[in-house]
């Protein structure tokens, strides 16, 4: 039996969710509703009598001050329409799970059934059924994971309401293993790959076919009782392990690169030739690189006692399908990378960078795509819940807008962690696995959710993209697991740890087993959410919040006892061996056995063609305007420049107590910081500095300079805030449209050439800036293809810079501090407006993409860095989107102080127009304010690099820029400038 209890707000109490829902219906869907009220419904799968229900209502479900509850009949009344939204079967219901535990606490008994939640929206207003359907589909529910029912007041039965719907999972299915014939024609092989969502190429299918034809393989299989053909378990396991997502096949391919000018270069693996090579070269001189490119996250030395760990991931495709669930899983998932590095690190901060189409997009949407505002809002909320609920501050990020992200939004989530250098003289950054050690799965349980995530993300978004690829994260299960794992680590109970992300157990155990040389997995021992899963599903499921841990047999009892005491589930699911085999059992029966060597090294190397061609865009033709005030105001309000306070405020950016430079600083706590500074260990003023660089617009002209500029932006943000050049590393995250030439991607060769050039720049500037990549990620099929509509993202690289400031109290913020301070511009302004925000405002791309002079830039950064540490700099802000004009305005309005600036003093080359000087996006430039008493020392410190005093900070709020001809080019007020900057996303 199912008992249902409904909870609503007493009259006279504000229903905040109802209010905000009403606002969004009115504003986003342009449907006029008078009011929205909400009711929470809980369906308890238990046979409780009225007395128990009454007690649960009072003690648990309703807040006696503001809420009322009803369990005998529906609570809803006084509406024109009612919509009830609940989960589809098998979707993680976090609130339901908490309710179950809470009911058990109160009744002191174990509930056999579950608790299922749903939400009712009571709408009032003159709206049609069609409009209500639209509200449900476009705003209240996501049909991928949720179902809804609609009723109007006339058809509503006040005694019974909606027919009770309980999304129980019923898999009346005996788990079984299938044999899959591989001795078939090539076309059948490819059909198999496609139908099973294996995402394997013909060459790869043939390699598998060949493996099974080997005599010794056949003999060994017969001995184990396995069929001669692969089992579904084996094939799925290979597909996961060999997926683009896990094996980075494009980055490891052999590439023939034609530079378009007759020169051909052969590249054997972009990763080895550029990314890792730059790190290896820098590592010869830098003694602070601890563990790079071999673990789930990069590890650098923070001080003698602690290491700093960092990873940035992408979660694009899931976020396209279910923005909330996708982003939540993204942030909670990347937390597990530091957690699964070495013997485990504690996540201490998050970063997030999103790329969306305009939230004001007003054209028709192609099928299966959500409106960009819905994506924005869902992703924002997902990261909010993931970060806030686990208690990891989101300290740095940005949002980039371009309508080509309509097909796939990019959701980059990063997590930094802290790891003790040693525990009991054991190096914490090194994981060990010996034959005989046990494999434990810790945290959540396995369900059908998240099956085929790895193979699926290696494909473009298409018509039959599976629903099961979407997962909903559960921050609290993960938080409990995280607390437990850190305790277990410090007690030396963990020998090795890794997370279950893409590919599930198959990948996590498979990877760790490389250290011992084999493993045995007991799939029947893995805790499941519900019975009825086939063995292959258990092996590759990507259900969230799970870690795989290697534990010595002697420490098993202690590990399990602690897990139990922390209310965390842990189970032995296998053991490490040195058999050379990846052996999987279900009960007594072997269901898979693969050679470790074939599993990990058997994937054939891809061979690809890349061909570069220089693109020519129209050279803009428009006159310099005498008054640039309007241009400046427009630029400040543009999506890529404007305030992101709406998002930042909803993220906890200071939990853990170490925040020093927050995302928003200044006189009114609302100026945009260049980088974040936080103290990861309370009690010490040593700080971590984190920043990012991302500028996809430049890639339309040349991906080389896009990457160079992203590297420069990340580093200059870092330097501007006080980060030390002695210890700065970077993380590279490539998100690309399909760069493999095919029918679907006829321009693949050009896109691959863009990728080659991006890698070349990464190498060049990593070395020039002594900023080694320590970890990275690539996501290679960011296209939308349905029918004959194809939308590809612009090639996008995110560079995250991470490093140290020895004393966080020496950090510098962007806001002008005092009237009378001098204003300086550092670096040279050139006619470099190709791909700039200003050209975009005027409807052009242009060709003069900003270039980076690494040598000049590094000299400037070194001097600026020293000046900052000497305390000579009052404020420092980098020039990026919108150039000098925007940087000056932001410096002024963040400090709520006016400014006089004379453009004639700005150091410049080939820039002879006011608009070009103001809005060129030349790299490696800063706006700095310095107090008059520090000016002489500052100028001395900067000697030898291009810089100039261009004005001073006023004692009122006037913002005045004198142009190249000596007359006023901009005249405004900081309050007006700030309002223009704030209004765009002021939701």
């Amino acid at each position, binding site marked *: 039996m199912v008992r249902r209890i409904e909870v609503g707000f007493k009259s006279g109490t504000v229903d*905040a969710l109802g209010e905000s829902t009403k606002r969004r219906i009115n504003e986003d869907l342009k449907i006029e509703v008078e009011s929205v009220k909400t009711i929470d419904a809980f369906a308890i799968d238990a046979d409780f009598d009225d007395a128990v229900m009454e007690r649960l209502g009072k003690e648990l479900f309703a807040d006696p001050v503001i809420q009322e509850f009803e369990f005998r009949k529906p609570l809803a009344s006084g509406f024109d329409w009612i919509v009830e939204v609940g989960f589809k079967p098998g979707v993680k219901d976090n*609130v339901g799970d908490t309710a179950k535990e809470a009911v058990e606490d*109160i009744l002191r008994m174990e509930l056999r059934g579950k608790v299922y939640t749903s939400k009712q929206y009571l709408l009032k207003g003159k709206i049609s059924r069609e409009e209500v359907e639209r509200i449900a589909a476009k705003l209240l529910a996501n049909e991928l994971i949720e179902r809804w029912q609609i009723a109007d007041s006339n058809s509503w039965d006040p005694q019974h309401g909606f027919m009770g719907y309980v999304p129980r999972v019923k898999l009346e299915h005996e788990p079984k293993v299938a044999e899959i014939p591989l001795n078939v024609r090539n076309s059948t092989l490819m059909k198999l790959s496609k139908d099973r969502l294996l995402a394997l190429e013909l060459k790869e299918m043939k390699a598998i076919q060949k493996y099974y034809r080997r005599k010794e393989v056949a003999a060994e299989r017969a001995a184990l009782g396995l069929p001669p053909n692969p089992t579904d378990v084996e094939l799925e396991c290979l597909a996961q392990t060999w997926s683009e997502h896990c094996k980075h096949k494009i980055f490891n391919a052999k590439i023939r690169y034609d530079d378009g000018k007759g020169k051909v270069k052969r590249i054997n693996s972009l990763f080895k030739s550029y990314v890792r090579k730059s790190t290896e070269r820098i590592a010869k001189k830098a003694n602070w690189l601890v563990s790079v490119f071999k673990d789930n996250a990069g590890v650098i030395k923070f001080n003698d006692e602690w290491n700093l760990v960092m990873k940035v991931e992408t979660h694009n495709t899931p976020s396209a399908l279910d923005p909330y669930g996708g982003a939540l899983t993204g942030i909670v998932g990347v937390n597990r990378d530091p957690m699964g590095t070495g013997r485990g690190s504690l996540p201490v901060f998050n970063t997030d960078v999103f790329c969306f189409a305009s939230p004001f997009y007003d054209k028709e949407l192609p099928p299966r795509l959500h409106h960009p505002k819905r994506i924005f809002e869902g992703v924002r909320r997902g990261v909010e819940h993931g970060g806030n609920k686990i*208690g990891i501050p989101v300290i740095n990020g940005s949002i980039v807008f371009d309508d080509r992200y309509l097909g796939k939004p990019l959701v980059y989530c990063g997590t930094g962690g802290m790891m003790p250098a040693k525990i009991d003289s054991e190096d914490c950054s090194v994981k060990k696995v010996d034959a005989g050690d046990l494999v434990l799965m810790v945290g959540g349980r396995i369900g059908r959710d998240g099956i085929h995530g790895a193979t699926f993300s290696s494909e473009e978004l298409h018509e039959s993209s599976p629903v099961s690829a979407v997962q909903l994260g559960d*921050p609290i299960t993960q*938080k409990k697991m995280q*607390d437990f794992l850190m305790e277990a680590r410090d007690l030396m109970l963990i020998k090795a740890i890794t997370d279950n992300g893409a590919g599930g157990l198959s990948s996590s155990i498979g990877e760790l087993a490389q250290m011992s040389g084999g493993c045995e997995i007991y799939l029947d021992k893995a805790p499941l959410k519900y019975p009825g899963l086939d063995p292959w599903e258990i092996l590759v499921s990507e259900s969230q919040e799970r870690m795989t841990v290697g534990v010595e047999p002697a420490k098993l009892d202690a590990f399990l006892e602690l897990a139990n005491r922390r209310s965390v589930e842990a189970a032995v699911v296998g053991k490490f061996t040195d058999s050379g085999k990846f052996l999987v059992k279900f009960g007594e029966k072997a269901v898979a056995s693969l050679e470790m060597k074939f599993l990990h090294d058997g994937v054939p190397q891809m061979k690809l063609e890349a061909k570069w061609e220089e693109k020519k865009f129209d050279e803009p033709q428009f006159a310099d305007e005498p008054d640039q005030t309007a241009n400046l105001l427009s630029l400040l309000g543009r999506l890529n420049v404007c305030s992101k306070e709406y998002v930042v405020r*909803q993220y*906890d950016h200071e939990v853990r107590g170490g925040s*020093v430079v927050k995302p928003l600083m200044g006189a009114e706590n609302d100026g945009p910081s260049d980088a974040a500074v936080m103290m990861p260990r309370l009690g010490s003023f040593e700080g971590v500095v984190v920043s990012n660089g991302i500028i996809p617009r430049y890639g339309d002209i040349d991906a080389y300079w896009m990457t160079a500029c992203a590297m420069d932006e990340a580093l200059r943000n870092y330097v501007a805030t006080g980060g030390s050049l002695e210890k700065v590393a970077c993380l590279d995250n490539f998100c690309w449209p399909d760069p493999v030439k095919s029918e679907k991607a006829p321009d693949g060769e050009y896109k691959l050439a863009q990728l080659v050039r991006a890698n070349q720049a990464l190498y060049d500037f990593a070395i020039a800036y002594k900023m080694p990549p320590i970890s990275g990620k690539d996501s290679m099929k960011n296209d939308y293809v349905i029918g004959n509509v194809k939308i590809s993202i612009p090639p996008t690289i995110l560079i995250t810079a991470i490093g140290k400031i020895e004393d966080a109290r020496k950090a510098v913020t962007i806001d002008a501090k005092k009237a009378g301070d001098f204003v300086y511009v550092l670096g040279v302004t050139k006619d470099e407006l190709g791909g700039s925000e200003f050209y975009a405002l005027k409807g052009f791309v242009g060709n003069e993409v900003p270039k980076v002079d690494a040598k000049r830039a590094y000299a400037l950064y070194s001097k600026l860095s020293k000046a900052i540490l000497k305390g000579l700099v009052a404020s420092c802000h980098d020039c990026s989107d919108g150039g000098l004009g925007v940087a000056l305005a932001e410096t002024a309005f963040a400090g709520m102080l006016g400014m006089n600036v004379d453009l004639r003093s700005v150091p410049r080359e080939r820039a002879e127009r006011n608009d070009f000087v103001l809005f060129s996006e030349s790299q490696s430039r800063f706006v700095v304010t310095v107090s008059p008493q520090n000016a002489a020392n500052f100028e001395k410190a900067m000697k030898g690099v291009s810089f100039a005093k261009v004005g001073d900070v006023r004692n009122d709020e006037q913002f005045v820029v004198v142009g190249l001809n000596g007359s006023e080019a901009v005249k405004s007020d900081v309050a007006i400038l700030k309002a223009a900057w704030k209004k765009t996303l002021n939701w």
Partner: protein
Amino acid sequence: MEKPKVLALTGFGVNADTELNRAFLMAGADSRLVHLNDIILGKSKLEDFQILAFPGGFSFGDDLGSGKVFANKFKFNLSEQMRKFLEDGKLVIGICNGFQMLVKMGLLPAFEKKYFEQTVTLTFNDSGRFEDRWVRLKANPSSKCIFTKGIETLSVPVRHGEGKFIPMSEEIRKRLHENGHVAFQYCDANGSPTMDYPLNPNGSVDSIAGICDESGRVFGMMPHPEAHIFGVNNPQWAREGLANSEGAGLRIFRNAVEFAKKEF
């Protein structure tokens, strides 16, 4: 007593525990984090401590109302130990999620020591959003609250989605004021309590940000004083030359520790 012992609770999604523990250590206490399960299992006993702290966080993800499920777990397992702790006049502080727990457990305001009866609540902000922003608090000079003694105003961040304080009735509202239960109110630049958003970030009735019980020894507040234990935590540090000063929020913890030193 030289070093009062502080038990700061942890587990089940509490997450502002490290900095709370640090704040008490800096204030001179012997403070430690203890998992709720370890108290339920008897591995730690409340009677061994003089100060009990409920930290901020998202216990149980705020599912079924912030603080509610954690509060129930505590109440159904530890009510006897807790009664004794309170009868002994020991100190209790709850911050943010911890305040929500105290209120929903009925330990605040607990008129006439009627414990475990809820009379006020903390619910969704009027904005409908979680917000992280710094606010200014005015301490009530006529409150008996020992945690806020000597404080006039205080800058601290709020970081919550459910911080709107609502008393169950008009009578309770009056009583909160009359008996000096109101310890902190959101105020404007002049130090006057305000209902203006975002100065009052959640729409709390009478701008109430923190309350205490009749003895002044049990105290809860929504904003986070443990997030302002260093000068550089204050977003104005670079403008006001606070880099080398102590964080103003530390005063709350010092007050508690000094009081406990004398009293126990």
